[in-house]
């Protein structure tokens, strides 16, 4: 048996934030080349880039399960940048230490977080790219509702965008943009109006 700390064992036996989100804003799947173990990590992110929810699933040892659990507890409520600055050592310390041979198990959690943030940013970039293309070239069906003047892009999120209209958005404009954008992205993207 490994010499695991009380706190590590407690996280292993009662993992926090396990499971998956139905519609994650970012998801990753990573595996450890050292041992063949693997995990998934889902994040939900608000419009301030803050992690509002996070879930993990792990196929791995007690060290891997506990460090994934600890990581989710640490990063929940942090901004993406803050979360990414959480190091492996911090997770190990949070758990009251871990046998050195087991460090690779906690590395997996960190890689999963990086992967989920990367997935979030990739999804967000995809939405932004499509939105910019839609506003550059107003030739799509029902682009007419924008009256030739596209709104400004205030904020982009993988599942919603905040638009700034010069005046009052015309009748059905919000719905039309959302419909076209969702079609292009391949997933429902909500459109909100910045007042």
């Amino acid at each position, binding site marked *: 048996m490994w010499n695991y700390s009380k706190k590590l064992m407690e996280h292993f036996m009662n993992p926090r934030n396990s499971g998956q989100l139905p519609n994650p804003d970012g998801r990753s799947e990573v595996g450890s080349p050292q*041992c*063949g173990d693997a995990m998934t990590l889902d994040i939900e992110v608000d419009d301030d880039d803050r992690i509002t929810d996070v879930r993990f699933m792990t196929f791995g040892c007690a060290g891997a399960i506990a460090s994934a659990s600890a990581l989710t507890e640490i990063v929940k409520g942090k901004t993406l940048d803050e979360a990414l600055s959480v190091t492996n050592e911090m997770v190990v310390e949070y758990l009251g230490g871990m046998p050195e041979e087991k460090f690779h198990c906690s590395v997996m959690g960190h890689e999963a977080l990086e992967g989920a943030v990367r997935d979030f940013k990739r999804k967000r970039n995809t939405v932004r790219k499509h939105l910019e293309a839609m506003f550059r070239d107003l030739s799509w069906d029902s682009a007419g509702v924008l009256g030739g003047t596209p709104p400004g892009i205030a904020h982009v999120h993988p599942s919603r965008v905040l638009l700034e209209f010069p005046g009052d958005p015309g009748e059905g404009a919000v719905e039309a943009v959302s419909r076209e954008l969702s079609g292009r992205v391949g997933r429902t993207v909500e459109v909100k109006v910045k007042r």
Partner: protein
Amino acid sequence: MKAYLDNNATTMIAPEVLEEMMPFLTHRYGNPSSFHSFGGEVMKEVEKARSRVARLIGAEPEEVFFTSGGTESDNTALRGGCSINPLRSGLLVSMVEHPAVLNTAKKMMRDGTPVGFVPVGGDGLPDMAALAEMLVPETGLVSIMTANNETGTKFPLAEVAEIVHPSGVLLHTDAVQAPGKMELDVKAMNVDMLSLSAHKFHGPKGVGILYVRRGVDLPPFIVGGHQESGMRAGTYNVPGIVGMGKAAEMALEELSAVAGNMKAARDRLEEGILESCPGASVVARDSDRLPNTCTVLFKGVESEAVMTILDMEGICVSSGSACSTGEIAPSHVLTAMGIDPMTANTAIRFSLSRYTSGEEIDVLLDILPGIIEKLRRISPYA
């Protein structure tokens, strides 16, 4: 501890064995090689032990050499067997051998010995056609275990001998897992060398034997004094040897009485697990297996996590992975059988002994399903 289900790792010492050893740990401390009768009387006990072990495997006492255990016996058999004839220094071993054989073979290969690794099928049995094809004129020794320590699969040694012997090749078998669980007869198995280790059948740790068929011209294992006919020098490990003798006698006497019970208990454990743990499957279930062993794959659940919880509950089992260094390498036995590395990481081995009680199995069956269920809930692969 509530349940000890790791008897393929080691077994408890039988009370009768300990009792026979005690005088040699206390007042009968004479050196068997001494001139005086205080030592000479002890030699009689060493020879009695040799005869008991010989009877266990159907050999002559002169063909039994005491060693420090299974690992030494395997090392000696491989290195010695390949050095008898310089023109026949080649070695073939199965891919599912214990590290005592496998790593010796790999080291010998690095040092220049031609070594081949015989593949096994999904049933865990060596591929006989491949073995026959891999035999070449330079092959001097083939080493195939009697029964596998992870899966319990028994290997058809007599069949292997039929392939190997006609071309003048020697056959060694690592029978460390066999005593007390199956019949052993070096004549019927038709082997030239055989390794045993006392602690796997309720004897003490650190003592074993290498059987060497009369006429096999093995070089001395360890050079020094004239003990063991000059084959294996070093003052006798008298308590160990005496203990091994008693353990061998008991293994032989009790085999017919206990093998059935052991199998019934193993089957109850196996069926209990399959019924209560979704996604569980038994490795090599349809093969002829030792009556005490079963390895179960728990889909989506990593074995070390399971063992960690079982350990907290006082239940001892093991996994096939070599995890002591932190790098969990999936079991070479399971991967050789074609099981993918991730699935191999879900393997737990349960191994019983004639002392395993029904309560121990009850405790396991009571606790295990909840553990598997709990870990499956957080697994991405369940």
